[in-house]
């Protein structure tokens, strides 16, 4: 780190050595994002604000309250502490279309993303796949196998989603800790491949 050399102010010359690694959990509404975050991490309450659209201002009665221009949105947010000063933070991406503006903010600096898929509604995860492909953010597809869901063939899912051959596709149960651990270790290993040559011997 060379902040001291290039930064004139005290406020920028400090480096704590702490590192928070951001991982996104994306996928369609109701696919299990909240459950996944809760299974593996310490859930943290987190809200953000959304500027109300003109239309919603028209619907809500805002007459005479000029400052009432925003509303709050709850985010899925979880923390995994590796050690003091090293954390993984999981951010669920909002499922509804009107929150697309938040994806860019969530995606900045992310290590990678898990796209959760439900084979009964595979098309629900198309927008997430497109988004991460376009921005070059490493992602894996995790197929949530609900009770009673038949076993799925990853090759068929790959074809249906039209994703590249090297993108991992894993089957998981978001309620099972071991299963979610496997999803995250797969993502982290895949995402660091471009950074650390040949990480697989560590597996």
């Amino acid at each position, binding site marked *: 780190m060379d902040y001291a050399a290039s930064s004139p102010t005290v406020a920028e010359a400090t*480096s704590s050595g702490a*590192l928070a690694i951001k991982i996104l959990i994306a996928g369609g509404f109701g696919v299990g994002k909240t459950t996944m975050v809760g299974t593996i991490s310490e859930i943290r309450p987190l809200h953000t604000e959304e500027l109300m659209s003109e239309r919603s201002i028209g619907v809500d009665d805002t007459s005479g309250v000029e400052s009432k221009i925003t509303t709050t949105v709850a985010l899925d947010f979880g923390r995994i502490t590796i050690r003091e000063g090293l954390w*993984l*933070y999981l951010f669920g991406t909002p499922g509804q279309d009107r929150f697309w503006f938040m994806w860019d903010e969530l995606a900045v600096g992310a290590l990678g993303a898990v796209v959760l898929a439900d084979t009964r509604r595979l098309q629900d995860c198309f927008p997430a796949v497109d988004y991460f492909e376009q921005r070059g953010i490493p992602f894996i597809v995790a197929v949530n196998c609900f009770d009673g869901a038949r076993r799925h063939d990853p090759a068929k899912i790959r074809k249906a989603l039209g994703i590249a051959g090297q993108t991992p596709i894993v089957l998981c149960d978001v309620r099972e800790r071991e299963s979610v651990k496997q999803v995250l270790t797969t993502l982290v290993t895949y995402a660091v491949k471009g950074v650390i040559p040949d990480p697989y011997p560590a597996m």
Partner: protein
Amino acid sequence: MDGPGPLIRLFGLTGGRARPVGKPFELVAIVTTIRMPAEPTELIPEHWSVLKICRKPTPVADVASQLKLPLNITRVILSDLRREGLVAIERPRPVAQSIDERIYREVLHGLRSL
């Protein structure tokens, strides 16, 4: 917080501003307290809380979570404290520069040990 009602009070914390001052910072930028003022009474309680939380380096989103305040309001508060020279907010580093082999192995080991 349900609905915009409490936000009216919350924007009081930021002097009505919705945007932080100075360079932008992202969700997991690390905030660290540089100094605690001798007279805590000079600070509003939320500012004092941030300084206490960030005696241990803490990411922005986690500060918001602990304050139970929305993200952008937390950002305004953090940017004010930065302007006063009370906290440092680290510039985000590209992932490639943040994660070396040692960190990677620590993360894998940590995940498997959960």
